[in-house]
């Protein structure tokens, strides 16, 4: 039996957890910890990273700084590398600052067949950035993502937590104009 079957943990819980994050974030992480057996705090890792990324921890929400990752490790009594592994594996965790609006354009099979290339080139032209870049004013980040499970409404993108489907260049303009 190896470390995949056993909860991963540091030998000794570190003190000072009440100094981490905000009471709201701690409550949110605790809510997730409570869903699993007590020794499996590790199971709350992904949810904890989401909670910390979404919150305004360092006046720059939407991404996880090195300190955020280490704080999550500290809070969940995990070796830091275990947090780095998860945070670098999933594409929805941002490890560099992102714009206020993160536009995640699906370019997977269904969207591509329905014209995601046109959506991407329209967005790139409109915002003056390439996929993977952030506008200079820090308003928009353009990101290419894999299937978000909304093939019925292809082509689509996601801004924040909102899905926008059946996109056309005009519809894209309308959506972006509606953003702050």
């Amino acid at each position, binding site marked *: 039996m190896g470390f995949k079957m056993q909860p991963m943990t540091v030998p000794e819980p570190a003190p000072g957890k009440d100094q981490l994050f905000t009471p709201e974030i701690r409550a949110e992480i605790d809510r997730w910890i409570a869903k699993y057996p007590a020794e499996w705090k590790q199971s709350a890792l992904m949810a904890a990273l989401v909670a910390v990324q979404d919150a305004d921890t360092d006046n720059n929400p939407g991404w996880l700084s090195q300190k955020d990752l280490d704080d999550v490790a500290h809070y969940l009594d995990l070796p830091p*590398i275990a947090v780095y592994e998860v945070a670098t594996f999933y594409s929805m965790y941002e490890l560099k600052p992102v714009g206020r609006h993160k536009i995640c354009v699906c370019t997977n099979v269904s969207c591509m067949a329905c014209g995601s290339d046109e959506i991407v080139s329209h967005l790139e032209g409109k915002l003056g950035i390439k996929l993977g870049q952030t506008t200079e004013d820090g308003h928009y980040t353009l990101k290419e993502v894999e299937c978000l499970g909304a093939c019925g409404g292809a082509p689509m993108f996601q801004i924040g937590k909102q899905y926008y489907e059946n996109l056309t260049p005009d519809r894209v303009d309308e959506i972006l104009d509606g953003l702050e």
Partner: protein
Amino acid sequence: MTEESTITIEVDGRALKAAPGAMLIDVCDAAGIHIPRFCYHRKLSLSANCRMCLVEVEKVPRPLPACVTPVNDGMKVTTNSPMAVEAQKGAMEFLLINHPLDCPICDQGGECELQDVALGYGSDASRYAEAKRVVADPDIGPLVATDLTRCIHCTRCVRFGAEIAGIRELGATGRGDHMTIGTYVEHAMGSELAGNVIDLCPVGALTSKPFRFQARAWEMVQRDGIAAHDGVGSNVHYHLRRDQILRVHPKDNEAVNECWLSDRDRFSYQALSAADRLLKPLVKQGGEWRETDWQSALEAAAQGLAQARGDDGNQLGGLLSPSASLEELYLAKKLMRGLGSANLDHRLRQADFRGDPPKVPWLGGPIAELEEQDLVVIIGANPRKDQPLLGHRIRKAAMKGAEVVYFNPLKLDLNYRAAQWVANPRDWVLEVANLAKAAGVRKGVVNKIKVADHHKELFKRLKAADKALVLVGDLAMGHPDYGLLRCLAAQVAEAAGARLGFLTPGANGVGAALLGVTPGEGGLDAQAMLAEPRKGYLLLGIDPGFDLENPAQGLNALMKAECVVALSSFRSPDLETVADVILPLAAAPESAGTFFNIEGTQQGFNGAAPPAGEARPGWKILRVLGNLMNLGGFDFNTPLQVRDEALGMLGDAAPDNGFEPDPALELTLPEAELLRIGELPIYSVDPMVRRAPALQATADAQDAAYLRLNPEDAKRLGFTAGDRITVSQPQARKAVFEARPDPAVPQGAVALCTAIPGSQALAGRFGEVTLEKA
């Protein structure tokens, strides 16, 4: 394996017996049927990610990985059917897609698992024409070099960290094509077993930093040996080219070191070519050191000792390294006894010799049984650093659910969960006394204390435990109340029906005790022969500034002596100050000898390399010295003759921790504002280890140089991290160290290691210290 519990499977037409549920790869390995593999390792968890071990199983339509396929009765397996071979070739082709073709400049070339398997399963040309992946190489410390472009993501090193080393340092970050092995945030590996990833890595991604680019596997010869830096006595292979040891690998021995090796045993060979290696005999004439020939040096030594002795043999004292071989110790003892001296000792770092000593202290049981314990109480030791592979066995017990409780004067950085009862060096003894009182001891020190509930509960658990062990280690031995601590520990073990064990010093502590390298009738022990200076001393394999419990007192006594004869592999300023003759001694890998390891196993070894310069094996030097001094019985021609005579003298003597506890022993360590804790750091244990540059560059060695004290004490005294602090101890010179506040040190204590540069000026390992800003 009884008949009912075995099943029969068929592999490549051969019928094999197997335990139900065993993995196919293990069954095939046992039968000598080779299945290629990269990620599988018998000591690590199964991950089945390399897909190299795919085999065909009858009635299964697809190939199965042998490492995670449990055997079933009647299973028919083919490891070389067209389907299996096609699958294996496919796996190989994928593994080689991103693997660079840099074998000619790769350190692993010639002993690479990927290279070997590619020969059998790879294609002569690649169909892959696209760009290969390139990965930046992080610096993970002075021991392990990285070339991660070569990594095939088997994750053996990652699993090793989590499962064996107990600290997850390496991980697999990123995903898919971007996955890399590394620490993510660059930092050095801190494990004392880190070097094992070099052996585990099937390719050249993780290689030995001190060894790299020095030789090819096929240029070297392999000779066996026994590691000489702790009581484990790890079995090793020395790899030599042109008679020079270039690296050390573990040799499998399940009962001793399994397939592992501590970094200390792996990299200490570097010291064999240290700049201050002693290559010729040295004699001091008129205060000046002169290189001379063996004959004059030995004559000077014999004459010096004879003069210092005069008519009284007890004017001589012998201080012998507990890591010297049985043969060396035997002849040194014979020499000293022949000269009429009863002053002989190997317990050089022990502070207190009160009370009846254990007959022949040892671990108390086999090393392999450590991992089967239910409860281990450890008094004054840090096995993780003191004897890393014993620490590993204790960790295994803890991972299986054993309770481990530490009584120490400072908090340890452990790699498993354990209770640590920490108190300053004086209260620590009382903590152990508390446990003894809970065990029903009523006489002596325990009278003055009130037993706490948690001690009672611990004793109850200790008594109830099926397999319980009380271990006493180096920190306890260095304490001025060791006699008392030992007595309390023995009483606790006795009352609980637990086994008692001693973590004995050096590579041959048990051998030295068996031989009786201890004071004879009316003789002086290691402390006493320095407290009451002798006229002549014989030093074997030690550096008096580093290897004595109280170096200030020791150097002083040696300084005053008329004649000090030292057998040493190295020059050192302290040795050159106090000695009169220094005879170049072959180091352990250069000499034949015998060690009794901590579990009492006799392990013999031959010299793997010729001694450097004119150095000679200790037994030869002592033989000639004995003959020159006209003592009878020194006519040996081979080390085997010495060994046989020594073993003959031992007869059927066996390790035995039995002794008569003396309840009248008092607590002698006085209360003081600040008491020193003189830990023996992992990379300071003997002259060889202290001269291995790679080991000295590790965090373990560098951190040992600091004076650590509790942040509260630091605040009270006005010290901050980085302050230069002058340390004074009674009867010692002052020394300056850099302060580092550390909550692991209890209030009222100062952790200041022994055997580190600067500590030669200081006195005992425990006792009062005064600090002031330099």
